[in-house]
């Protein structure tokens, strides 16, 4: 792909002539440059940092970097202000003896004291009951390490923030196509002609989407944005579809309806790459119903039209029926997956007319978009002439591309029907044949993986021993759940229980609530890394803050020991018993590993590192270094030699020498003793140096013949196996029909030979929502909320210049947005007598907030929205007491409950997607009404001022950042006196 810097800038001779007349503005001899990886959000762009006088002169994008190709967003450009933020923690802190938790009263302690104390405590837990440690990490990018650490510790209670971020997207993809959006796949920006952006709330991904939109626009492609709000990316869309929140599945399936109705789908694609032709047992309300019809070896069967009998569905050279009901040789009634699909989606339930009522999108528009998609996919087909071989051995001379692509994120994922909504979007892609084809939605290595990846969640907690596998994995059937014999959850967040069976990222949002309730059990120590759980990263903020301080009858805290690791003085730091101060991203080593959340591009395997640009000026340590240290002290097997000595000197040593499998480590580049191997090879003692030499990233181009149809591309599949991406080189069959979900459904219906839910509520949820084909269902909170009482949807977006960042304290970025408004449709507001910029109450089942309203055109008329995480607690983040963030800024979180407000569920149940446990924080329904005359200023709720952590300085009224005395350019007196005039 051409980088932006490749474009030739016309620098005529005149430039050099002028240059000679100018002073030397920059003293390059006094400047140095270091490359590293940005961490202002989760995009992981490559950056080049120019240093001058030991300060940062300039941060710019690395031109050759695969993620950002030289560009950089507002956050990346504001790195300097993060580096000098007054909110940086200075030293380890211990809650002052005798003080109450949550009062931010600390005494500074040394790292030795802190680590000794923590080691002792953790050792005791590990030797008695490792699950008493709950370790949850926020927006970190080192889950391969934290997960390994948790597994080695032996606790099942580990997860990152995916449970309230985007697990629905990851899970839906990995259970359908073997890859997903963002880190898993991207539109083929170079070739796509029609791009649909679903529910992106100015969030993931930052620069890659922007770069892509440019590529699309340069070629004149069409850009359709489906979003209740028209800001950010939606602004430049050719067509904006203001959909009602939480109804995207209906829209996608209605598009599917139109495609099916007009026979606008890719027959070949369905037969060759998906399970559309698989036979499904059709014995309603009987055991085995809805499972694939398999032969005695367990191989799924198809109906061969020539042989007129069942054949192995995965054999090559069969001529399977795509459609039809059959009776097999043994008398079993069966029908093809595609038959079930047509029965389901051709029903008028999914007609544009019906969808229109639910989504608020005109039927004609749905019909037209479906036809446009079909036109581009089938009439504007593209071809890439390259020889390749599919898994059956058949040779092809070209890749056929259906240049329709899609990207979806937050607005799809954060609903309780998000998993099925995301699967619906994948269905649309599959019908159009635009999966991993030229111009379509491309996988990014190590994806695609087999559906679903063959890693099962660990669940056997044994004192003093590691867990049998990572705490998080991909359940394929009810047997894989982390439940005890009585069906009770094993995990503190109840992930992999009947409440959230395929909660692949855990349910971080439930951890505090459950731990405090002792449900399913009490814990001893909770560690939070980089997660603001006492503020914007939680539902029901006020209640959670109380919970964190809740005590047992004996006066002990219900969460006895809380460790918070963060670089900044956040609201959550105030609740810690022990604070471990982290470094900033410019002061540390890191790996962005393929084992973790990769930064690969569709046609290149990539990973990268961070290498320190500056020395910390505080007594702080990078968290990964601390983890390796703790792991060594606690003598985790993977971190300890046979003689009991520590295996790794430090984090860098660990990264070089740790091997997950022979030849496979955290970093894929420059492996082998002399750096001669890529992707797989022996540890290289000079690996870090190699990365630093190469601008801190590694990029391995995939062969042309391996670039597309990778789930069925023999060459690629063999390559992927060789380098350890996949365990086998079997084809990756796209699962339109999910037998895995059907197994759960059968369990819910009491028709499964294996674990089955015992509670009626679980039975209902499992049997209702585990649909083997995606369906639209009303989001759970909407189902149990009176729409007359709470007629509005309420959602959030994160401004692009703060998305995924921690930067309300950033002196440059907060100038753009120091407080937020509740945005509302202008015409609707006028109907209700709500005036622009007036103060209003917004009320939900859970609580109410008083905020300032701002009217606009670009929002769906039943939807309210605001910028997320702008509001801050007085006293925190190094901000002054009268900072707008605490006087006018607010959080919507107060209105969102972590439990469903439904009365009919018996005991409280998580407000999450019933399949994946994804926090359903976009399901919120609210009412809005004007505040009284005497209430026309100030947000509610308003929290008391918190103490600043020790070492956080008072701030000055003037900031004049620079790295040197400026070299000025002056105008001559002669010029002043003689130039122009008297006209």
């Amino acid at each position: 792909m051409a980088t932006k810097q490749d474009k030739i800038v016309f620098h005529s001779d005149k430039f050099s002539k002028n240059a000679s007349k100018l002073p030397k503005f920059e003293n390059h001899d006094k400047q140095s440059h270091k490359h590293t990886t940005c961490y202002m959000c989760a995009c992981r762009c490559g950056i080049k940092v120019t240093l001058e006088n030991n300060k940062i002169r300039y941060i710019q994008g690395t031109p050759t970097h695969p993620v950002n190709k030289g560009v950089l967003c507002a956050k990346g450009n504001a790195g300097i202000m993060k580096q000098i933020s007054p909110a940086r923690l200075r030293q380890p802190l211990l809650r002052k003896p005798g003080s109450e938790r949550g009062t931010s009263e600390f005494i500074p302690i040394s790292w030795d004291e802190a680590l000794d104390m923590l080691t002792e405590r953790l050792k005791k837990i590990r030797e008695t009951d490792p699950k008493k440690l709950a370790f949850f990490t926020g927006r970190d990018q080192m889950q391969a390490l934290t997960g390994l650490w948790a597994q080695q510790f032996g606790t099942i209670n580990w997860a990152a923030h995916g449970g309230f971020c985007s697990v629905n997207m990851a899970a839906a993809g990995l259970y359908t196509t073997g890859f997903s959006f963002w880190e898993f796949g991207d539109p083929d920006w170079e070739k796509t002609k029609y791009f649909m952006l679903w529910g992106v709330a100015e969030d993931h991904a930052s620069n890659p989407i922007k770069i892509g939109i440019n590529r699309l626009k340069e070629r004149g492609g069409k850009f359709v944005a489906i979003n209740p709000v028209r800001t950010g990316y939606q602004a430049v869309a050719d067509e904006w579809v203001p959909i009602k929140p939480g109804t995207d599945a209906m829209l996608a399936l209605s598009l599917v309806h139109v495609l099916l109705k007009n026979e606008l789908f890719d027959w070949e694609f369905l037969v060759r790459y998906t399970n559309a032709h698989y036979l499904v047992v059709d014995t309603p309300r009987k055991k085995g119903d809805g499972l694939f019809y398999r032969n005695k070896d367990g191989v799924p069967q198809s109906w061969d039209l020539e042989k007129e009998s069942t054949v192995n569905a995965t054999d090559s050279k069969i001529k399977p029926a795509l459609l039809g009901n059959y009776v097999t040789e043994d008398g079993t009634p069966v029908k093809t997956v595609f038959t079930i699909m047509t029965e389901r989606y051709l029903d008028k339930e999914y007609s544009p007319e019906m969808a229109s009522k639910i989504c608020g999108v005109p039927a004609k528009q749905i019909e037209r978009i479906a036809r446009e998609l079909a036109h581009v996919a089938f009439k504007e087909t593209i071809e890439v002439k390259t020889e390749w071989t599919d898994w059956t051995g058949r040779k092809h001379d070209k890749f056929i591309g259906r240049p329709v692509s899609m990207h979806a994120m937050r607005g799809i994922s954060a609903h309780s029907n998000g998993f099925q909504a995301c699967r619906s979007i994948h269905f649309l892609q599959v019908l159009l044949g635009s999966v991993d084809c030229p111009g379509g939605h491309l996988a990014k290595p190590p994806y695609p993986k087999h559906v679903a990846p063959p890693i099962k969640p660990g669940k056997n907690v044994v004192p003093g021993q590691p867990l049998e596998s990572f705490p998080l994995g991909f359940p394929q059937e009810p047997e894989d759940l982390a439940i005890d014999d009585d069906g009770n959850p094993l995990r503190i967040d109840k992930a992999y229980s009947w409440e959230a069976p395929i909660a692949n990222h855990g349910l971080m949002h439930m951890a505090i609530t459950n731990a405090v309730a002792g449900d399913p059990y009490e814990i001893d120590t909770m560690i939070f890394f980089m997660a603001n759980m006492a503020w914007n990263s939680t539902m029901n903020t006020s209640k959670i803050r109380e919970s964190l301080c809740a005590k047992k009858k004996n006066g002990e805290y219900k969460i006895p020991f809380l460790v918070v690791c963060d670089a900044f003085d956040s609201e959550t730091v105030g609740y810690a018993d022990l604070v471990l101060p982290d470094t900033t991203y410019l002061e540390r080593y890191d790996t962005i590993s393929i084992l973790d959340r990769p930064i690969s591009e569709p046609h290149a395997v990539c990973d990268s590192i961070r290498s320190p640009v500056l020395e910390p000026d505080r007594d702080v340590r990078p968290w990964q270094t601390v983890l390796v240290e703790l792991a060594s002290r606690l003598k985790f097997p993977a971190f300890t030699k046979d003689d009991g000595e520590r295996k790794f000197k430090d984090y860098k040593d660990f990264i070089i020498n740790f091997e997950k499998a022979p030849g496979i480590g955290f970093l894929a580049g420059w492996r082998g003793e002399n750096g001669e191997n890529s992707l797989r090879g022996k540890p290289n003692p000079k690996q870090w140096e190699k990365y630093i030499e190469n601008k801190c990233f590694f990029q391995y181009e995939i062969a042309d013949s391996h670039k597309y149809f990778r789930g069925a591309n023999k060459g690629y599949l063999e390559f992927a196996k060789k380098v350890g991406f996949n365990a086998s080189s079997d084809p990756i069959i796209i699962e339109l029909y999910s037998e895995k979900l059907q197994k759960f459904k059968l369990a819910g219906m009491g028709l499964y030979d294996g674990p089955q839910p015992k509670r009626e509520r679980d039975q209902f949820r499992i049997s209702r929502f585990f649909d083997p084909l995606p369906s639209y269902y009303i989001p759970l909170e909407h189902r149990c909320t009176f729409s007359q009482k709470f007629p509005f949807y309420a959602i959030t977006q994160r401004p692009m210049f703060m998305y995924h960042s921690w930067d309300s304290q950033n002196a440059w970025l907060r100038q753009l947005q120091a407080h937020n408004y509740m945005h509302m449709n202008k015409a609707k507001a006028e109907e209700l007598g709500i005036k622009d910029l007036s103060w209003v109450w917004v009320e939900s089942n859970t609580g109410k907030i008083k905020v300032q309203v701002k009217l606009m055109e670009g929002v769906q008329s039943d939807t309210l929205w605001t910028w997320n995480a702008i509001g801050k607690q007085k006293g925190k983040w190094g901000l002054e007491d009268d900072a707008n963030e605490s006087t006018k800024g607010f959080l919507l979180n107060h209105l969102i409950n972590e439990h469903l407000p439904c009365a009919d569920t018996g005991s409280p149940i998580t407000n999450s997607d019933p399949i994946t446990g994804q926090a359903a924080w976009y399901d919120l329904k609210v009412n809005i009404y004007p505040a009284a005359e005497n209430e026309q200023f100030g947000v509610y709720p308003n929290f008391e001022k918190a103490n600043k952590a020790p070492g956080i300085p008072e701030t000055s009224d003037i900031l004049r950042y620079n790295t040197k005395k400026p070299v000025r350019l002056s105008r001559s007196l002669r010029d002043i006196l003689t130039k122009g005039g008297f006209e």
Partner: protein
Amino acid sequence: MRLGLVVDLDKCVGCNACAIACKQWNTSGTSGSLTDYRPYGPDPSGVFFNRIRHYETGNYPENKTVHFPMSCMHCEDAACVTVCPTGASYKREEDGIVLVDPEKCMGCNYCAWACPYGARELDREEGIMKKCTLCVDRIYDENLPKSERKPACVMTCPTTARYFGDFDDPESEVSVVSRKREGQELFPELGYKPVNKYLSPRNKVEIDQHDVVEPDLVRKVKDWVNKVVEL
């Protein structure tokens, strides 16, 4: 030379990358520092050379949002230069960049009054008017790679919605793109001849959708049953 920028409103997603890149480069550049007021207090503010505003047109649901970055237009007939009493404001003959000589500025704000685009901001700490320099301290720096001799805002723009170059050169990227897309001036009627050009949002992309539907051929599901596709 007539240096300037082209801003593509069809691509600008309002991300503020250009504004912050500008701030970052220039606070340690020839115009530095770019003072910030109350950086951690109420109503934080500061000197910026480039600001992005956001507009709406039309009524829901036919509305459109337009992100609108604005910085100095480096007018050919720059009123700010005309009105400046001290001669601190000037337009360079060599390349047309409008600059302020900080040694000569008396901070009277008169140039800011004369500018219709809000391109000038007073640095109250220094008492000096400041503005976009088109990164005069980058574009001529021969120690930088050629590809980086561009204003910071142009370098960083993730959607490539900003172009930089010489409008006097008919082959330059800015000339070509503004010819092709009919680059527009803001407030042309004031007669200041702004050099910077804006590319308007494109018309909707029209996609044929009739060739995929032939009502007569809408098949009944049962017709599909015997279609043979080899696996």
